[in-house]
């Protein structure tokens, strides 16, 4: 049975990380090359970890499913990265970034982890600048900042609307340097199929070469999963097409606890759904909310006229526009956190004030253009406007953007302790793949911060505390014992998938799962809806194993097989999300239960019953998983109802 020991260091919150580093075990330079570390994923967390561990002298193997580590989906993050530099002299500090993150996460994150995150945020900016990341600068040559939701200071660093790209390319450069030096061996177009556990410790992984179909095993003294989030369980999301939850799910089935799966972030500013063949949703950066004003028509008849094409947004006079965020949250206005903005949009649309197909509201730049001039708006958001126009054929300088919330980020993930180690010794999880820092809701520009924090500044320390005791573990033969057995299991699983030989494409089943998830496990959840959803997912899972059709063979490049393997896991993970949402009888952050809301429709937490991390342990096929609870103690900030008014 798993036990949750968060291993938070002793001492005052401000000293925990320093104390940890001062007393942890280290591996001496000559011994580092004798130790193998496997990193799965090459995004901000994985790429940064692989590069940093390679620099230290460990023998690193890094895996990604894309054709190059530079493609990881961190690249798509647009808006920015937070840090407590206080370059703007506007009252920022490490404590304030910590506090905003805890509050933004609706008091469901671990204080010690979040404080460490805020502490190293400044190192990240320095590191990236030194790597040549071209952050935006002011005329004086110093770094520029912008504001993001959930904060009253300007602490977000950015590189146009392509911050994720630039930070990832920075990490990719560092990684490339280590690949050139031979400390890191890169395995692109390779998918992790399972982990290998020997005598209770994670000792490696089994992979499938996506070009040849070959199944291989790799030994590592430690394994890091930096495989991103599981938002694609909803089919439509802002994730990349290949983003998947399989690595995390395989680890779960081998004994790693999965924490808070129901905490899923729905991003308020995405381009609305246009049709059944749509394959993904495109996000418009949250930074747009700095200058754009969000509104819906005040009168239902105006909304209807716009839906029918009889009126345009421009025909609605200001007095008939409902700037509902400014109305409901005067203090934060259009810059409330993402969960609050998303629910407010849904509330308007549910009451009949939506435009497009009823599932959209306006994000209007008319006022910013009047105030600042078109040039300034273009300089700030030009590339985003261009992208919007390419996709929708509408010009946002002339007509307001239409936006609607979409699945974006998963706060839940593999449970990890303070060292980012899972409940399986030797298995670590970093970035979006773990659950650790964002509680029930992530603030904008904090995902990049957490990924790089884990990869550059946390794991290179904490993993040594584990590896120091592994010096005498010899490299294992990957052709025998547990490695050979897991390889056989993986081959059997693939054969089972290939042998269904049904009639339905993988995508068609994935879309059905997406509909169930969105309807029953989406933005507004109820007990009955979730129970119904669980049943439907179970039935769909049966349907998948009876009807899925995978053309081609397993021992060659086979994209349908790759997708089927991931969707098979989503069909199980989806049920765990619903189960977690059902058990959590409260509303917090991205998890909104209709039964638990204030009179004003805000999320109502039940701190006396649910101020804990819910970590699920796998107990076998068709057996209910076991829930473990890690109580959250708030010693340095007071538990409060979030208030953005």
């Amino acid at each position, binding site marked *: 049975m798993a036990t949750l020991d968060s291993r938070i260091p002793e001492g005052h919150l401000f000293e925990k990380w320093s104390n940890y580093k001062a007393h942890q075990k280290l591996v001496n330079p000559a011994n580092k090359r004798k130790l193998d570390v496997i990193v799965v994923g090459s995004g901000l967390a994985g790429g*940064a970890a692989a590069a940093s561990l390679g*620099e230290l002298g460990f023998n690193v193997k890094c895996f990604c499913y*894309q*054709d*190059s*580590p*530079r*493609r990881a*989906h961190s*690249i798509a993050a647009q808006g920015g990265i937070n840090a407590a530099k206080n*370059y703007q002299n506007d009252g920022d500090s490490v404590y304030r970034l910590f506090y905003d993150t805890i509050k933004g996460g609706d008091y469901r994150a671990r204080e010690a982890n979040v404080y460490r995150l805020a502490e190293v945020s400044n190192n990240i900016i*320095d*590191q*990236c*600048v030194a*790597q*040549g990341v*071209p*952050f*935006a*600068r*002011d005329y*004086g*040559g110093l*770094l520029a900042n912008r504001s993001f939701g959930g904060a009253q200071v300007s602490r977000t660093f950015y*590189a146009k609307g392509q911050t*994720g*790209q*630039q930070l990832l*390319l920075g990490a990719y*450069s*560092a990684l*490339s*340097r280590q690949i*050139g030096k031979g400390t890191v061996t*890169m395995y692109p177009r390779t998918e992790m199929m399972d982990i290998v556990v020997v005598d209770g410790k994670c000792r490696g992984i089994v992979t499938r070469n996506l*070009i040849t179909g070959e199944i291989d095993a790799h030994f590592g003294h430690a394994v890091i999963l930096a495989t991103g989030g599981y938002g694609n369980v909803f089919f439509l999301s802002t994730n*990349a*097409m*290949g983003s998947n939850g399989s690595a995390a799910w395989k680890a779960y089935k081998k004994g790693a606890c999965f924490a808070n799966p129901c905490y899923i972030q729905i991003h308020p500013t995405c381009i609305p759904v*246009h*049709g059944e*063949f*749509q*394959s993904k949703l*495109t996000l418009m950066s949250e930074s747009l909310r700095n200058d754009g004003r969000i509104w819906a028509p005040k009168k239902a008849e105006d909304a209807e006229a716009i839906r029918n*094409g009889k009126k345009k947004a421009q025909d609605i006079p200001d007095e008939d526009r409902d700037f509902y965020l400014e109305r409901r949250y005067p203090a934060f206005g259009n810059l409330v956190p993402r969960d609050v903005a998303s629910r407010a949009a849904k509330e308007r649309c549910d009451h009949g004030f939506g435009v497009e197909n009823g599932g959209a509201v306006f994000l209007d730049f008319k006022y910013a253009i009047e105030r600042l001039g078109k040039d300034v708006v273009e300089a700030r958001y030009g590339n985003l406007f261009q*992208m919007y126009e*390419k*996709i*929708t*054929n*509408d010009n946002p300088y002339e007509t307001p953007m239409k936006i609607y919330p979409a699945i974006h980020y998963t706060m839940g993930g593999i449970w990890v302790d303070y060292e980012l180690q899972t409940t399986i010794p030797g298995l670590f999880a970093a970035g979006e793949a773990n659950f650790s820092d964002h509680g029930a809701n992530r603030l904008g520009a904090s995902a990049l911060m957490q990924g790089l924090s884990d990869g550059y*500044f946390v794991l290179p320390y904490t993993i040594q505390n584990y590896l120091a005791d592994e010096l005498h573990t010899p490299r294992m033969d990957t052709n025998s014992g547990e490695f050979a057995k897991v390889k056989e299991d993986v081959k059997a699983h693939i054969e089972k998938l290939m042998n269904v030989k049904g009639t339905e494409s993988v*995508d068609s089943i994935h879309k059905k799962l997406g509909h169930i998830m969105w309807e029953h496990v989406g933005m507004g959840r109820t007990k009955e809806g979730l129970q119904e959803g669980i049943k439907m997912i179970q039935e769909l899972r049966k349907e998948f194993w009876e009807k899925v*059709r995978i*053309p*081609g063979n397993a021992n060659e*490049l086979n994209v*349908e097989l790759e997708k089927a393997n991931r969707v098979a896991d989503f069909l199980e993970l989806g049920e765990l999300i619903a189960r977690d949402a059902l058990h959590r009888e409260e509303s917090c952050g991205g998890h909104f239960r209709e039964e638990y809301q204030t009179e004003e429709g805000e999320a109502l937490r039940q701190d006396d019953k649910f101020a804990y991390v819910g970590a699920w342990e796998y107990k076998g096929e068709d057996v209910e998983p076991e829930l473990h609870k890690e109580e959250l103690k708030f010693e340095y900030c007071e538990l409060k109802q979030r208030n953005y008014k």
Partner: protein
Amino acid sequence: MSEVQNLNLTVKVWRQKGPKEQGHFETNELKGISPNSSFLEMMDVLNEQLINEGKEPVAFDHDCREGICGMCSLYINGHAHGPDDHVTTCQLHMRKFKDGDTITVEPWRSAGFPVIKDLMVDRSAYDKIMAAGGFISVNTGGVPDGNAIPIPKKDADEAMDAASCIGCGACVATCKNGSAMLFVSAKVSQLALLPQGRVEAARRAKAMVAKMDELGFGNCTNTGACEAECPKGVSISNIARLNREFLCAKFQD
């Protein structure tokens, strides 16, 4: 999004079983494609149709589908990433085509990028060029404060423009010589424009150019096709800067 009539199309797709196999065009008829779909969503519909007919779907690279990962490629009607300017194939929308059109879809064709299967090509040569010198040699930690070195806004902006390269390979696929100069020059420029990157600018330019030559990419003859087809509008002036950096480096030897 405006309501427009759906499209019926003829799609001629390059099929090739493996790197050493001979390829051929396969003609498919597609009906009812929404003009609001992206090009890759049209390819999804084609694949769904092929699977339902019991055939093998077309292999093509794609991932983020928002124009930034650089994974998607495709030579469409003779243009890298299709007929629209400054977009990747995933952001090319079907409203750029007319009902009844015949669309020809091919992989990148260049010595540096061998075909893996159908429309999928091997671009690992780019990673090798990057490993040869596409970085600033700093380890994690021990770096100065981010504001310690002021950088003129103009230089930072220019570095950013060069850094917006997504490594898709359209420049190589478009170039009649199969040259990777736009790709290499974008990285060399980005780092050479910043004081942090100046320190090893000479070494970087030489190492990246040497690796590019070694991997069989052709020479640049200044036709400008790469710039015209680059989905991110990376400027050919970067190639001039690379040439300058490279020459200066050689003179220093």
